[in-house]
């Protein structure tokens, strides 16, 4: 039988409509975002995994200094792999046709769809827009780069002094992010592009050829652990063969270690738990707000409840009655949230992914996990918290309800307070008797500020990195040579200003804090102007870049264990001091020591540091060069991918904290409406009433904000370290000092708005409330 109480439900809904609407909106937002995020995410992962199969993604690739002979290919293939030749060329790209290079483009030969399907070729292409090139002077370029650079199908771009018509925007399966080098920390879609042209076109282009070979395992490894083992063994074998055939291994990139393949996938499969957890905490806060609202209604209606209980209604019936409105609001929010989640929120998130990654086409797929995390969990949280709090409250005896004595504590007398002025004691009483509401307020504010802190910390960190990495650069230009001598055995020289030889090698860490992080080892010349470091060091003494020292928490005197990147050799150094360089984890030693340690001939070097570009050395001897632009391009990319969104997010955070403060102060004022009305009747001026009832909230809000800010900073630092440990390289979390007051001010401004609303709420409470004698 339907309880006659049901008739009261519309009234309950009407009484608290403003709160229910706010809670409803926030819940729709949370549920929508979580489900949108999870659905988008799962759909993307699905698309990536499907493409990996269908477009025959490589298991890895390597790069040789010279073209591999058939014998070498055959020799390599005996180790259980199939080799696919996929050469590329790299040019400056001029996409606004102003004659200036806007970035670099890596050009491959367009793959053949049938051959991809039959497995004769690897690394197929997903065409996002337009079509593949099939004629001279036609090109298809990476979709994400095109978006970033504002290139559309049909536009023309110039490379190698030739105009090409862009026929299509594509995503190559081996470039889900535009990592220039497999080991780059970050991709660069702003100034780096991957493109395909027809085979005839490719062969007709004049330019330096890069000898890249992809491979696929005949027996694919079962999991990543096995893959690592197999690929490490494979590398040893390949190095032997390559040397036997007088070639040189320049790059070895198994897929699991290839950023271009792995970065997006890792990102998609990685960071969602944190977000979901934050959302769930938000939902807990909301559930508490609902529960508090309900329990205030119960307090207000305690006489009715007492009478109903006394006349035979069960606790269960009343509990169901009082939680049914919150439950209905939640259910409705879940429904609307899911609809939005699968539509516009999903589109927003997908947009974010497309804004960062070269994603293939995708289909939206239904996702059980999304449903559980976005909908089932919030519902359970809402029900559980409401049932517990409301149920507990209703457990009191009917007599207590009739007496309006709903305190659950056994305390007979009121807490004694310090000898403050009456007004301050009054405020303290308000604070104490509304403690639960204030705790919820604190929790909510903390969450908002924590998230907001990140929205400032991420761009702040990127900018800081950008600033310091340029300041710290040891030279304007850094060149890596293929060998120190030219084809005639002459030692390479340059007259570029500030030119200085150096030697560099790559090792990986073998340390307790983290194994396998790539470390650049530099040997510098005596009296180096680029490295202001002493030369008379013991063989095992090294200087350590500040990035390395900070990340691994190293102090002078600590020992540093490294091992070979491609072999089993091990090295042990002692840290002599810090060299201020935040761009990479590296160590520095005199070049003589370097050559002894790495078994090089005396006088060996493999690069130049200069103040201006080198023009007097033939490009064929140069393996790579780095200048300021290359370093900041990482930061620019990050800025581009996340910077813009962060501003929206920080406003979203302020908006949510505003709504929370609005809700909770509203609840507090409603709860105290009779008292407020009473003191007005007694002759308290509006300002005095506000100073009592708003001041208590203000103090809590302000303290919550300040404490939250400090807590956020500490917590974010810890989380950031954990996050960075996973990746190579280091940049410390950085928030400009001026941002702290800004974060505070934004929230205080939001609170001020709420306080103004509160003030008018208080003013509006009629004095007759106190006289109605209803209670």
């Amino acid at each position, binding site marked *: 039988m339907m309880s006659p109480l049901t008739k009261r439900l519309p009234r309950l809904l009407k009484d608290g409509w403003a709160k229910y609407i706010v809670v409803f909106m926030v819940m729709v937002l949370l549920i929508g975002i979580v489900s949108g995020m999870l659905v988008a995410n799962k759909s993307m992962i699905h698309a990536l995994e499907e493409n990996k199969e269908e477009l025959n993604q490589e298991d890895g690739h390597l790069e040789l200094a010279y073209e591999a002979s058939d014998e070498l290919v055959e020799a390599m293939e005996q180790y259980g792999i199939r080799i696919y030749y996929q050469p590329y060329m790299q040019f400056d790209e001029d996409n606004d046709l102003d004659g200036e290079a806007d970035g670099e483009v890596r050009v491959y030969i367009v793959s053949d769809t049938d051959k991809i399907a039959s497995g004769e070729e690897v690394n197929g292409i997903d065409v996002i827009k337009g079509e593949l090139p099939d004629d001279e002077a036609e090109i298809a370029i990476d979709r994400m780069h095109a978006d970033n650079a504002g290139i559309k199908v049909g536009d023309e771009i110039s490379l190698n002094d030739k105009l090409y018509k862009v026929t299509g925007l594509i995503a190559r399966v081996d470039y889900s992010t535009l990592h220039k080098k497999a080991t780059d920390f970050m991709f660069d879609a702003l100034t780096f592009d991957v493109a395909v042209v027809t085979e005839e076109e490719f062969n007709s282009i004049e330019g330096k050829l890069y000898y890249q070979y992809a491979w696929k395992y005949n027996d694919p490894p079962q999991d990543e652990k096995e893959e690592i083992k197999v690929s490490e063994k494979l590398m040893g074998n390949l190095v032997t063969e390559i040397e036997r055939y007088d070639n040189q291994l320049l790059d070895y990139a198994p897929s699991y270690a290839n950023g271009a393949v792995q970065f997006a996938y890792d990102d998609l499969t990685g960071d969602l738990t944190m977000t979901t957890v934050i959302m769930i905490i938000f939902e807990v806060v909301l559930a508490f707000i609902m529960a508090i609202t309900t329990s205030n209604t119960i307090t207000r209606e305690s006489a009715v409840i007492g009478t109903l209980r006394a006349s035979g209604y069960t606790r269960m019936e009343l509990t169901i009655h009082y939680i049914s409105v919150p439950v209905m609001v939640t259910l409705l929010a879940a429904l609307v949230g899911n609809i939005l989640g699968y539509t516009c929120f999903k589109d927003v998130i997908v947009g974010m992914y497309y804004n960062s990654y070269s994603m293939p086409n995708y289909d939206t797929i239904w996702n059980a996990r999304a449903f559980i995390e976005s909908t089932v969990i919030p519902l359970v949280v809402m029900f559980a918290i409401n049932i517990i709090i409301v149920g507990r409250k209703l457990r009191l005896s009917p007599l207590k309800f009739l007496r309006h004595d709903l305190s659950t504590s056994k305390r007979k007398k009121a807490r004694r307070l310090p000898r403050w002025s*009456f007004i301050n004691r009054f405020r303290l009483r308000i604070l104490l008797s509304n403690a639960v509401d204030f705790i919820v307020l604190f929790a909510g504010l903390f969450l908002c500020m924590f998230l907001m802190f990140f929205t400032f910390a991420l761009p702040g960190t990127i900018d800081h990195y950008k600033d310091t990495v340029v300041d710290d650069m040891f030279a304007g230009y850094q060149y890596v040579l293929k060998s120190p001598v030219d084809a005639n055995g002459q030692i390479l020289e340059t007259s570029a200003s500030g030119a200085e030889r150096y030697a560099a090698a790559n090792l990986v860490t073998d340390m307790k804090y983290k194994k396998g992080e790539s470390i650049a080892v530099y040997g510098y010349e005596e009296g180096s102007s680029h490295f202001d470091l002493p030369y008379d060091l013991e063989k095992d003494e090294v200087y350590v870049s500040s990035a390395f020292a900070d990340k691994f928490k190293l102090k002078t005197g600590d020992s540093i264990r490294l091992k070979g990147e491609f072999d089993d050799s091990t090295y042990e150094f002692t840290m002599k001091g810090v060299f201020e360089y935040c761009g990479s984890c590296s160590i520095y030693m005199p070049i003589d020591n370097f050559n002894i340690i790495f078994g090089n001939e005396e006088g060996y070097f493999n690069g130049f540091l200069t103040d201006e570009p080198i023009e007097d050395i033939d490009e064929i001897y140069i393996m790579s060069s780095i200048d300021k632009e290359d370093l900041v391009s990482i930061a620019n990319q990050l800025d581009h991918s996340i910077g813009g969104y962060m501003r929206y997010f920080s406003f979203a955070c302020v908006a949510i904290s505003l709504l929370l403060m609005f809700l909770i102060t509203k609840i507090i004022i409603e709860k105290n409406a009779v*008292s407020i009305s009473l*003191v007005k009747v007694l*002759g*308290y001026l509006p300002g005095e009433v506000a100073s009592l009832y708003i001041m208590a909230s203000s103090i809590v809000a302000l303290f919550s904000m300040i404490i939250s800010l400090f807590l956020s900073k500490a917590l974010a630092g810890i989380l950031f370290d954990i996050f960075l440990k996973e990746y190579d390289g280091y940049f410390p979390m950085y928030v400009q000092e001026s941002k702290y007051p800004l974060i505070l001010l934004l929230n205080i401004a939001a609170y001020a708005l709420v306080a103004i609303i509160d003030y008018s709420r208080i003013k509006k409470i009629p004095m007759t409330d106190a006289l109605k*004698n209803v209670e």
Partner: protein
Amino acid sequence: MSDDIKKFLEISNIKKGFGQGDSRQEVLRGMNFEVAKGEFCVLLGPSGSGKSTLLNIIGGIDKADSGYIAINGDKLEDMNDKALTLYRRKHLGYVFQLYNLIPNLNVKENIEVGSYLSDSPLDIDELLNTLGLWDHRYKLPNQLSGGQQQRTSIGRAIIKNPDILLCDEPTGALDYNTSKEILKLIEDVNQKYGNTIIMVTHNTELQHMADHTIKLRDGLVRKNIVNENKVSVDQLEW
């Protein structure tokens, strides 16, 4: 009694109605009477006769449709919200039927709510003793009996030694003996501090303890009686 004193509180042609159109109800239909300073005045009348409505208008909480209230010649009608608040603050004390204490303040603090409003409040400890609340001063309202709550409420009203004490059925929710105690207390206050008291009640017997009784019916003053030989509430039975 001289005219001057008589004019301390003037209720002049007060009219008040509620509602619109058909459901319009004229509650007060031209009330006229005066209360002298220091007088103990009782308002009698059947339920619904507009006693509380009148008291609210005197208290500046509600506004009359026409007519005016004047205290010492100052008309409430001419005052803005702030002036009305200051009027209540300076001149008025309230005692309600259901006590209306602030639930999260203890007894002493509830009384301090009143003393805060006065520049020269009575001594609170002495008052707590007078009210018989000394032992209960740290209790919260919901830990008190009805009588104790009402005494607290009286304490809150009189600690600022108001010119006028408005009591709306102060004993309406109390038993016979407790009611008597409370009435005795109000009587003592009137005698000790000389406050003007306007007390609304159903109990016709109480007119004998008053200096002045106003009987209302159908929105008009039906009787305005000055009682020359009042007796103490101790001697009344009902």
